[in-house]
């Protein structure tokens, strides 16, 4: 990331310092790149300008774990792992399994909208974040949402900031709804033969009255697809569901697996060329089979979101996925545009950007359509 080299790093110690740093950069026409743990700085297009790196390293406190209300308010620079350790003291968690939790920060996962396989049961960050503080390029400190799970007062700006790649403002703190840690958990792996069988099994499991909390299929070069299912809850509940999974799997071999199969996505995401795809759940096999010759390594979840490592042909795959109504975002690898087609709402997105960051101070050029 050559563009990082000449940038000056600032580490504000509180919200007011973030506001002051942004205001002064904005006035001086300097481009600001917000940074949390730095694990996903290469995601998106390289910024067209980068003068100041605004690090959230000093904003790392868990401000309030209201465990009896199942909420937490945390500063943006806190790592996900640190937050989870705090929450676990009261038997709770932020129900999301992100990439590189020891280094990834709250601000970073929100801005990149990272999510893992638990999304099937608990939703993605947009469903878990209930309040946010956003500092705009002109220094405005704007709070939206709140500290209660149910709240429809004012616009839902926590969702606007989620996945905005830091182009609208710098997130300084967020409030989340929490879930209890599961009493027990078990992962089952089904040897799925080929992509077609995996596809059928996936739709069968999704249409059944199971209450699994995650489901993924691992595709590998010259290997049979492996489907992982996570069951959480009481021992009795898990046992009866395991029985049901074995029934539904029919002739396919079902084995109990170690929990680290859920780290498979991380391995794919660490490849030198990798994309995040989003397709309809019923289109998973056909998407993978199109690339059969290239033998991609991929992890695709029941929601239709997947990570594909592929040295060549990502642009072809994008064209196919988009023509089926899906999307493909290149996270790492050579490309002219990481994002693909943002659709007919692009002018509206530009208008939103223009309203909140008229000078293009924050992460210029990094997001869709040159935003």
């Amino acid at each position, binding site marked *: 990331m050559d563009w990082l080299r000449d940038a000056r790093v600032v580490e504000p110690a509180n919200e007011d310092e973030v506001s002051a740093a942004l205001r002064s950069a904005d006035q001086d026409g300097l481009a600001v790149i917000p940074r949390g743990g730095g694990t996903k700085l290469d995601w998106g297009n390289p910024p067209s300008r980068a003068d100041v790196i605004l690090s959230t390293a000093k904003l790392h406190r868990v401000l309030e774990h209201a465990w009896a209300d199942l909420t937490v308010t945390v500063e943006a620079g806190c790592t996900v792992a640190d937050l989870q350790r705090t929450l676990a003291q009261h038997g709770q968690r932020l129900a999301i399994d992100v990439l590189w939790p020891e280094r990834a920060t709250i601000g970073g996962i929100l801005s990149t909208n990272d999510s893992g396989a638990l999304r099937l049961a608990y939703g993605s960050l947009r469903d878990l974040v209930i309040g946010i503080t956003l500092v705009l390029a002109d220094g405005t400190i704007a709070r939206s949402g709140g500290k209660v799970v149910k709240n*429809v007062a004012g616009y839902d700006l926590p969702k606007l900031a989620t996945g905005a790649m830091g182009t609208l403002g710098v997130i300084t703190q967020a409030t989340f709804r929490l879930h209890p840690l599961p009493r027990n958990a078990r992962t089952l792996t089904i040897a799925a033969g080929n992509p077609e069988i995996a596809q059928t099994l996936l739709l069968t499991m999704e249409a059944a009255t199971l209450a699994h909390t995650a489901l993924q299929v691992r595709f590998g070069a010259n290997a049979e697809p492996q489907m992982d299912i996570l069951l959480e809850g009481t021992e*009795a509940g898990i046992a009866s569901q395991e029985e049901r999974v074995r029934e539904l799997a029919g002739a396919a071999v079902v084995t109990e697996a170690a929990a680290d199969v859920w780290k498979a996505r991380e391995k794919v995401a660490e490849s030198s060329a990798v994309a*995040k795809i989003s397709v309809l759940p019923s289109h998973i096999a056909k998407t993978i089979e199109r690339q059969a010759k290239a033998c991609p390594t991929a992890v695709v979840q029941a929601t239709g979101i997947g990570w594909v490592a592929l040295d060549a042909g990502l642009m072809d795959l994008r064209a196919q996925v988009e023509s089926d109504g899906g999307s493909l975002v290149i996270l790492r690898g050579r490309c002219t545009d990481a994002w693909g087609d943002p659709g007919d709402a692009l002018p*509206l997105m530009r208008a939103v950007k223009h309203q909140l960051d008229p000078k293009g101070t924050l992460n210029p050029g990094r997001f869709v359509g040159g935003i």
Partner: protein
Amino acid sequence: MPVPPSLTPEILREFRSIVGERALLSAPDELRTYECDGLTNFRVIPGAVLLPASTEEVQGIARLCHRERIPFVARGAGTGLSGGALPVVNGIVISLARMNRILEVDLPNQRVVVEPGVINVDVTNRVAHAGYFYAPDPSSQTVCSIGGNVAENSGGAHCLKYGFTTTHVLALEVVLPDGTLVHLGKKTLDAPGYDLAGVFVGSEGTLGIATKITLRVVKRPECIQTLLAAFPSTNEAGAAVSGIIAAGMLPAAIEMMDNLAIQAAEAAVHPHYPDCGGLLLVELDGPEAEVRTLAAHLDEICRSHGAWEIRVAQTETERALFWKGRKAAFASVGRISPNYIVQDGVIPRTALPEILREIESLGAASGLRVANVFHAGDGNLHPLVMYDRRIAGQEQAAEALSLRILELCIEKGGSITGEHGVGEDKKYMLAKMFSEPDLDTMQRVRCAFDPLLLSNPTKIFPRPRMCGEQPGEYVPHPLETAGVAERF
């Protein structure tokens, strides 16, 4: 009522050419039907009501409104409780009632595409045969529309576990206030770009009009168990709720009613609730073995917090009866009081005992009774402030008490609305919950969607913010001339 200045016969003729003769209402007696929504204390007769039948017609109406600077208010079934569909003076109402087709059902992918006028419960009815349901279930679900649910981000009793409307909306086709058609979100998840669908849901009609909505439907769980637990008072019932959460359970719903609410429900729909000080209605769902284990645990928790009677619904009919009393609670209060205000506030759930005590003493001080119905799991309160309009001063006292309850919610770190919206009713309260810069930032987002401030322009914000840049000649906005808004 005279035709407002902006709606000349020429303009009415032009509107008519878009929607057809019969889909434009302009006779005073027809317009009166649209003067208010479910919140009847605000009334404005609109200049005209249009009932478009297609996206193209909605676009045509919006373009004309844009050209002539006519403010418009979109309306679903008119069941809203915050005045969100209250017409704007000089403006038109666009009713989406005729756009009521279910366009696509894709069960393998658990998606349903609907027009905005589709009734909430009809989505479930369409997919129930295959064991699916549409999760957001506001109490008005048999009459309210999906378009209205999108505008308000409606909740319901089961959102504790399943989430709100926004959780279940994947994509929207939207007519912007200048008539442009845009697609927000996709049938697939995480579409590249800003999550504008997330911003649109719950924007109370201020950002445009949704003409097509892609919903997620959910598989009905294998087993549902519904129980009623009778406690001496709401204090014990509240403590039991804390116990349930602390035990790591996430029931599908936890509802609470106090004695007055129980009496009202009993008088109206006879659910045969136990006559007690605090009643919990708890629903567990999931795989049968899981539910059975948790139900035993739930029983213990309730008893250890003083429940003297626990009833488990044995049949689907009995379950429906348990819910009937709760869902009819607002309307039932009419049986025990001539007039009442339905309030909607949120507190952190742990503040429940405290706020109940305060509401009780406020009620006693003003000589008014307050019935309480809560979504107890998520701290969403619906105090029902009862009064008699015929007694001098009672209405004002009831309004004051109702507003004071909202202030208490803010003081406790909660919100002024959990599901009914800000609308016309609470726009001045919004300034007590958010600072000027917070509200200003929201309005900057609004300016991106609606720079001329035409779409439901007088709602949500205490002071509508005119947007900086205006294309073409300066035309004073009706709100500006009326002194309601100012230009920045």
